[in-house]
């Protein structure tokens, strides 16, 4: 579901810094699902990921003061936090965090059935996306987006030239943008 912005990012940050719970509620409504997706991509366990989501939002509330807009957008800040929390969790469980693209992809495919019962528009978007996004583009996006790999690290991990990685990321995101636009229009 695309966030219907009733706050600008600056307003949202400022209000939450002032401990405005309505603004925080808005933040949760608009970003919890996406951030859960990020956590779940690293910790593919429903319960653990839900616990982590709870921890994540409490952490966001507590540490919003340390968010500096000069260092990036709010979503990027939350994304980093979600990734780190999930990765720390896998480490604390002595799980190997060696990035397995396959597992991320698998989990994404696995979700198909689960998500269908959640949201029809998401399902449509999801289907379209999966059809249109080539599997190697997905691999790269998932690696960079969910696991925080740099383009260089992804290049090494996937044994692909850096230029190829860059191109594929751009193509993938252009596609995602198109899909998002369509979704909003719908």
């Amino acid at each position: 579901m695309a966030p219907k912005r009733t706050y600008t990012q600056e307003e949202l940050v400022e209000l939450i810094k002032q401990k405005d719970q309505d603004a925080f509620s808005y933040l949760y409504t608009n970003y919890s699902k996406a951030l859960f997706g990020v956590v779940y991509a690293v910790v593919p366990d429903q319960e653990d990921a839900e616990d982590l989501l709870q921890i994540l939002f409490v952490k966001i509330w507590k540490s919003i003061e340390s968010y500096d807009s000069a260092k990036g957008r709010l979503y990027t800040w939350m994304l980093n936090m979600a990734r780190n929390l999930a990765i720390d969790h896998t480490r604390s469980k002595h799980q190997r965090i060696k990035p397995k693209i396959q597992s991320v992809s698998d989990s994404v495919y696995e979700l198909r059935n689960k998500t269908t019962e959640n949201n029809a528009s998401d399902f449509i978007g999801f289907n379209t996306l999966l059809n249109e996004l080539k599997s190697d583009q997905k691999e790269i996006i998932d690696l960079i987006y969910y696991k925080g790999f740099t383009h260089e690290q992804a290049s090494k991990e996937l044994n692909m030239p850096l230029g190829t990685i860059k191109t594929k990321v751009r193509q993938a995101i252009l596609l995602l943008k198109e899909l998002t636009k369509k979704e909003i229009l719908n």
Partner: protein
Amino acid sequence: MSKNDIIESGILERYILGTTSSEENVFVQQKCKEFPELNLELEAIEMALVNYAEISSPLKPANSNKIKEKVFAEINSKPNSSETKVIPLNTLYYRMGIAASALLLITSMVYNIITRDELKTTREELAKMQQSETEMNDAMLAQKNEMTAMNEKMAMLTDPSTKNITLNGMNSMADKKAMVHFNPSTKEVYFNARDMQLADATKQYQLWAIVDGKPVDMGMIDLTGKDIFQKMRTVANVQAFAVTIENKGGSPTPHLETMCLMGNV
């Protein structure tokens, strides 16, 4: 670098994905100020990524609501932990209270010391005043006594029955005179030393009354007193008065060879 070049470079995607360096972040933000349209581009990329993550997110609305409730319960139970933040404030008030009490105590102590000093001073002044009052009373009493004595003398001297007897000098004191005022009815005797002096401090004048041819001790004459009228012992049936020079403190019997003044009644 043009706006399109920036978009084409893919740096905006990396900016949202959080894989840009801090230098690149500064660059992106500068360019966003330069070309405000880039902000729209950033938002579009962000929305695309949010959307993508949502699509692969198996979070059911019911579970999401439960988690949201838990999150809000936790941040609202934070008043417990934010109470620990309040404690320093309480501690502050507590400390301020202690400081105020201490200040009050010190002020009170200083005030007490000052007051005690003042009290001490006041007491000392009061003691001085009481002492001077006593002195004044004593002086008054002395004056009163003196007045009484004077009145007594005046009464005696103005009494018609009082006899004024001149004692004439003899031998070395031939040029000297003294007076005795004698009242036969009251038997009172006053000696008037006039200008009598005595150089030898070991000696003293002694008054004698001659009663039936025999000397009777009337007392020592004190020349140190201011009052030249000196009350002597009482006597009756006296024929004459005489003065001898005796050792200090007097003699039970007169040494006739030292007799220097004499007068008949």
